[in-house]
């Protein structure tokens, strides 16, 4: 991210050390992850040790230090989804994408992550792909759910979208 844009984020919080979580959230919203050089810049601008920023970034689950794919796939592993078979849905996703939780596909299209509860328990098992909710998932429905996003991208490549 451009340094000017980072300063804008820091300025929004008056360069207050106590708002570091909010700053990192804003940065990640823009960049999809927390780039190392941006964290170094923040550390410098706030006069805050990089180790402390690293501690925050690794303590909270919401942050990622590695780049993430265009579409983030989040599998809800809340209790309600679990008793309805979320683990089997996750297994199928891992297999189809060929990646483990926390990894990104080689074409940089998908990242696979899990979340502890989205509070949409009636729809469980639930999978969120790029912000879109897919409820009542089954292992059998996984392939068609992902296919849509693959198509989206190929359409974009062909200039049709």
């Amino acid at each position, binding site marked *: 991210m451009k340094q000017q844009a980072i300063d804008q984020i820091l300025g929004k919080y008056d360069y207050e050390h106590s708002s570091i979580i909010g700053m990192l959230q804003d940065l990640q919203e823009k960049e999809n992850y927390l780039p190392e050089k941006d964290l170094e810049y923040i550390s410098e601008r706030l006069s805050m040790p990089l180790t402390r920023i690293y501690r925050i970034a690794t303590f909270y689950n919401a942050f990622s230090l590695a780049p993430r794919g265009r579409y983030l796939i989040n599998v809800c592993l809340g*209790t309600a989804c679990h008793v309805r078979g979320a683990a*089997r849905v996750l297994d199928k996703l891992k297999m189809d994408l060929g990646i483990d939780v926390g990894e990104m596909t080689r074409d940089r299209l998908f990242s696979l992550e899990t979340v502890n*509860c989205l509070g949409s328990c009636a729809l469980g098992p639930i999978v969120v792909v790029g912000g879109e909710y897919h409820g009542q998932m089954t292992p059998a429905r996984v392939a068609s759910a992902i296919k849509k996003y693959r198509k989206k991208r190929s359409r974009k490549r062909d200039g049709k979208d």
Partner: protein
Amino acid sequence: MERIRSPRELEEIRQEILRGRDPDKPCITICSGTGCHAYGCERVTEAFRAELKKQGLEKRIDLRTTGCHGFCERGPVVLINPQKIFYQRVTPEDTAEIISETLLKKNVIERLLYIHPGTGERIVREDDVPFYKGQMRIIFGNNGKIDPRKIEDYIAIGGYSALSKVLTELSPEEIIDTIKRSGLRGRGGGGFPAGVKWESCRNAPGGKHYVICNADEGDPGAYMDRSLLEGNPHSVLEGMMIGAYAIGSDEGYIYVRHEYPLAVRNVGVAIDQVRECGLLGEDILGTGFNFDIKVNRGGGAFVCGESTALMASLEGQAGEPRAKHIHTVESGLWDKPTNLNNVETWANVPLIINKGVEWYTGIGTETSKGTKIFSLVGRVNNTGLVEVPMGMTLREIVYDIGGGVPGDGKLKAVQTGGPSGGCIPESLMDIPVDFDRLTEVGSMMGSGGMIVMDDTTCMVDIARYFLNFLKDESCGKCTTCRDGTRRMYEIVDAISQGEGREGDIELLEELSWVVAEASLCALGQTAPNPVMSTIRYFRDEYEAHIKDKRCPARVCKALITYVIDEEKCTACGRCKKVCPVEAISGEKKVPHRIDPEKCIRCGACITECKFDALEVV
């Protein structure tokens, strides 16, 4: 909205809003909670809007998007007022018909009605749907009446009248006394008397005082706080303002999970609105009371629901709890006296002030007053949020409101209290639900998650699930919690893999004791509950896994095999097609077979088979 300078002006504005509203005017109310959003309620709303415009009915018929109605299982939910006709699973294609048939010709569309699963009867009115009938929705009911992004709607139903009342008629001491006498206990899990907490905080020396709303609803399977904050944010804000006035605070925080984007947005809109009309900020209602609220998003750490960890997180630290020899009401955020309550607790406050202690204490049991919102989820027919008076039995909640377990499943247990709670077996379904009874049977109220489990749920797997959750969410400060939960997970995991050994259960019991006794915060102290309660009530299932290498519920992958019943198999080839590892073989017209060596037990074939030919043994 214009600035409101006094209680009288607030009342005038309320009357003005009400004068402009006709209670008999037809209104299409669409639930827009996160659940219905996921079902596509936005498209339904758009379709209604377009259709009303097309037919030139925009002035004659109101369209309102509201917060969560609770019956998420049946979304998108649409309510036709004033008749309260309840339509479920509405699609954009249904909208034109609803307008022409129901709103113009007053005909009910049978197809969209809810069908009683027991009697097969179609139910027209919302109040008659069994899911709603058994409830007492004093807190949650307003969700369906108001648009959370319109402060006018909240004011129209009497909003901010409790604030106006306390600022003009009551002293802080009188408010605290009212809350104490109401018997209101913290809805976040601990069940500590709210009035006592407020009093200690008010009396604590130290200049500045803070109030916090804990909306870091981390228990998996619980989402009532999200729905309240999303659907009726002003009720939470009003509760906080009353609390702040009673305690003597001028600054408040709402700490909300970042996984709840809609709640963050709606509460943000609500705060902007109250600030704009002067109900938040300086000299509120001309009484000299100053108060402001900030919203902080959580970072996705379960432990931050613990009060001291939450405060550390607000200060920009890693969310680690501290010892509470000195209570947070004396030294909390920035070492100042801080009063923290949960979303639902705050939402109870305006109601108690308006309706009085007598009324409030008339609801509930001896030691637990009022209602509680539960999220009834898992293996239950009517999934959703239910608000019931304290003291209702688990059986009434699961069967009368929840409609029992789906299919021919048999109820096995109800898990309450999230990862800190326990599993209550079927034999104890007749206990009244309140803070103390749940604790007695080895579980707890928690924030109100209620996960129904049937015979397809393996209790060892559930214990393993919660331990996996807790070992990941332990902040790592205490060795007993950090390593204890990990060791317990390894033991239970081994049991579920068929590698359990004699003595494992006893070892788990011993470890449980150590983790509970030697950990600092409630996360560690209650972490063994899921294991302890499942051992207490379902010891036979553990023994089946350890001794017989058998999973009675047929869940634990290492202990089950998938087979095809050759009599039932029609060789349609569906299972063969979906099998991700090509473990199924068979030609046309020849019953198929599964190679147990290749099979990864993903279950894809079972969901695909139309003939019930797949079995798990």
